[in-house]
């Protein structure tokens, strides 16, 4: 796969932002009760939307490598023990970019029959996953894992439906960027937490974490992180590509309270 100079350099620059966000408090937005949500995954999404899946993958790789190394260098709590494992810190992060790019491309031109076909397949997949989770004994009596699958499948379905339903021309680009941000963040949250859950349930990682806890963390952190990622990604891409959207004109001069 050929990679251009421009892509190499942009991957490096955005990767540097991801590392900077992780190493300083810039990447952490304080939320309620002392929890902070992170936006370190946003550069990978931005890179994927602007320059393609390869760039997104490389940025994700840099993010993951840094995350893994930082867990060794400056552990801030027992949670870091999980991130010392590359299956938790590196592999999931490499998927952020490609997934974001895929969603971006698919939701950009929803009227093309090819993307409609793919989105339809995604819906089928989501339905199948739910069916397997609840209909067959694959997960045994692991209710938590079932819930996680249900959540992931429903979100996939929602994204696919949103993609299929997009008809507004001008909003299409922005909505596609937003959808990519949602997908990218979900990938990060779902894959990282699933990795932790899977590894600890098989005893390869300690201390063990029950699936219900992972689900709770996923919801309380994941949803605000999705909101943050969408806001930031759209703002950055719109600024860089000089895309205008929403209501035209400065807010300050609009006649509202």
């Amino acid at each position, binding site marked *: 796969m050929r990679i251009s100079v421009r892509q190499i350099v942009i991957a490096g620059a955005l990767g540097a932002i991801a590392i900077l966000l992780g190493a300083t408090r810039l990447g952490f937005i304080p939320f309620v009760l002392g929890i902070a949500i992170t936006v370190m995954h946003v550069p990978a999404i931005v890179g994927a939307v602007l320059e393609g899946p390869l760039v997104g993958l490389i940025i994700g790789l840099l993010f993951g490598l840094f995350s893994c190394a930082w867990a060794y260098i400056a552990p801030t709590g027992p949670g870091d023990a999980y991130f010392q494992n590359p299956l938790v810190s590196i592999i999931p992060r490499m998927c952020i970019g490609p997934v974001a790019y895929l969603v971006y491309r698919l939701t950009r031109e929803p009227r093309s029959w090819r993307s409609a076909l793919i989105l339809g397949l995604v819906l089928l997949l989501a339905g199948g996953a739910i069916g397997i989770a609840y209909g067959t004994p694959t997960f045994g009596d692991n209710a938590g894992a079932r819930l996680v699958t249900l959540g992931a499948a429903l979100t996939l379905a929602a994204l696919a439906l949103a993609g299929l339903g997009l008809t507004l021309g001008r909003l299409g680009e922005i909505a596609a960027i937003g959808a990519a941000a949602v997908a990218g963040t979900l990938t990060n949250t779902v894959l990282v937490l699933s990795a932790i859950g899977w590894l600890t349930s098989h005893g390869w990682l300690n201390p063990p974490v029950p699936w219900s806890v992972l689900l709770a963390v996923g919801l309380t952190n994941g949803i605000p992180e999705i909101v943050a990622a969408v806001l930031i990604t759209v*703002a950055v891409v719109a600024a*860089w590509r*000089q895309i205008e959207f929403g209501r035209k*004109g*400065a807010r*300050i*001069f609009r006649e509202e309270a």
Partner: protein
Amino acid sequence: MIPLIEVRDLHYTYLPGTPLETEALRGVNLVVYPGEIVGLIGPTGSGKSTLLQHLNGLLRPQAGQVLVAGQDLSHPQTDLRAVRRRVGLLFQNPEDQLFERYVADDVAYGPLQYGLPREEVRERVRRAMLAAGLPPEVYADRPTFSLSTGEKRRVALAGVLALEPQVLVLDEPLAGLDPAGRKLLASLLAHWCAQEGRAIVWASHSMDEIARLADRVYLLAEGRVVREATPRELFAEPELLAAYGLEVPAVTWVLQELARAGLRVRTDVLILEEARETLLELLR
């Protein structure tokens, strides 16, 4: 006359107590009176940025005093945010700091952060944009990122002017602009400063700028004020400036060379018009 800003024996060290310790300011004294443009020149590493950041309270003095309109910034109780409304600081390449989608919103950011009511903010935004050469009817709804560098820089200026400061502290305000842009911005700034109770601190590497615009100049080197003089006095000492790696304005240099070659010309020249005069004199 009561000074707007007074700096007394200011000391500041970065990262004290670590192996990377650097003493940036070693006892700096400086005054800014209303109505003047004070120039600040010095080689890189002289402590210019550090000094500038003390003037609006971004840095607190470690020793010495910084008085802004009578308020001492080294006092732990001083409200630094209030100080920043009196002293507006514009960093180098301020156009990099724009982030709002539309120009008027970016200009409004400062006043809104200080909690001013919307109607007043709108008024301030209009006034600031006019003072910065950006007529609101044309520019208010323009997308920020589609402007030229010169226009963006003026948006940044407007953003600071909207806080209606008494003193503007500028770090290389004209760097990176084309000659037309420089001329425009310089005249806008001079015009702003001409009004009652205002002053400008102008840090620059361009001696031509300083010669043309500054009323007084401070030469800073190695954390200390080496010389304080008017531009005419200062540029009459090219050897002093050369000792710190600085030059005199181009015009001044030409005439100093001519004088050295034996021609009878004035050497205390700062701008092109004065040079022309003295050369014409010579030719008569």
